[in-house]
């Protein structure tokens, strides 16, 4: 009897986060000057997991009339414009400096570290029980001229006004 082949362990967290990020893009309004050209989703951190999933499943899809382009950044100095910037857990401690860097720009800063809403993130991924959730800071989003749909706010585990 031949032993069955074993499927390798799969990264089952990243597809969930990538899908949330795509949904964020569809449920947030960007100001007019951000509604032309490509829709850029940046990943600040290692080029794997969430980046791979975004690239594979969402690049080329449209947000309104804009085409999604997924970019990877390993240094904050490389980042110029992005509609969404997902900061990996390893780099999420840099939220304060990133918030300063993107002051006045309409970039949705999404992080993955407890307490980051108070440091400037508009959305922060958290785990509640065994489930991947997110929390939102409306005021941080407003500072970047971003309007978050009620549908998204209703799904957040925590909304900071």
């Amino acid at each position: 009897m031949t032993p069955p082949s074993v499927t390798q362990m799969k990264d089952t967290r990243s597809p969930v986060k990538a899908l949330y990020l795509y949904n964020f893009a569809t449920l947030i309004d960007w100001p007019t000057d951000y509604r032309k050209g490509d829709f850029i989703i940046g990943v600040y951190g290692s080029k794997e997991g969430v980046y791979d999933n975004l690239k594979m499943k969402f690049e080329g899809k449209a947000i309104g009339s804009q085409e999604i382009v997924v970019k990877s950044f390993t240094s904050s100095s490389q980042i110029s414009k992005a509609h969404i910037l997902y900061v990996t857990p390893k780099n999420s401690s840099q939220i304060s400096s990133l918030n300063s860097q993107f002051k006045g720009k309409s970039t949705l800063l999404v992080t993955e570290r407890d307490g980051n809403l108070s440091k400037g993130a508009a959305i922060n991924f958290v785990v509640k029980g065994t489930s991947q959730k997110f929390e939102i800071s409306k005021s941080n989003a407003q500072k970047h001229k971003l309007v978050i749909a009620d549908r998204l706010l209703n799904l957040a585990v925590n909304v900071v006004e």
Partner: protein
Amino acid sequence: MKVLKHISLIVLFLSAFSGISQQYTTKAYAKYQAQEFDSAKYWVDSAVVSNEKTNSQTWQLRGLIYRKLESPENKGYREIAIESFLEAQKVDPEGNHKEKIDGYLYNTIIRYYNDAVTQLGEKDLEGSEKSYVAYKEMYLAHVDGTKDFKTNDIEYYNALGSEYLKLIGTLSGEEKTQKTAKGVAFFEQVLSLDPNQFQPNFNVGIMYYNSGADLIMNMDPLTPIEEIPVIEEKAQNNFKKALPFLLEAHKMQPERTDVIEAITGCYYGLQDDENYTKFQKILDEKNLPTLLEKHSANPKNRAVVRELVRIYSTTFKDDEKYKKYAEILDNLEE
């Protein structure tokens, strides 16, 4: 599994069919010897509706002839052969032909088992299961009502479950779900007979793990946000089901890295970082030397470099090594 092809011995009829009272049987036997089986069938069928029907040897011959004529187009002939041998027993109350008839029955009934094995090889899994069940029923009814099939069941259902495991790798959607459930049921059947079997524990665990992981990995990119937690929960239910089997398998063979990998995957999917880290560390300790060797042999292997980046940034935190491999990875991807 060994394929046991039981070839029936053609037992010569020692006693000649002579005399007017056995004329149909005699003709049938002559045709049988001449390998003219259709003609033999004609004469033997005439014999069993004549006064020769009380002769055990007539029924034995009928069984042999029908068994010879059995083919994929005439599958029912096997049942007729068995019925004939049973009739041969019935008209032989003294048991003068018992040994011979028992042999005929065994060699005919074993064909169901041979079918089950052949169908397994041909990936006709449902057909194989039916044949195996028929074999057991027939065996118990007509060969030995006391036979214990435990060992056979363990071997057969392990093999059948393994074929389902291979099959589901090629399927998707509802069909995959259904076949996974069948495969799991067969392995669980084995475990109900012997819970200390490594392979079915591992296989059930893997089937549940893969089912859960597939739900996540194959999510439609346009899945509405409200659906994400629903899919996540379904996947996690599968990881929860997988864990007891995988942990049992790990207890039996703690060195198997594929088992550790699947356990790690379950805890990772369940967001149980404490256990995930524990098993990931065991896995990384085992895999690191091989990964470093692979990297030396082929520095451009992206998957290997990625693993090294992950290991040095999480399990064995080493900033210097992390930066080194992260830079290599970055260059590979540019």
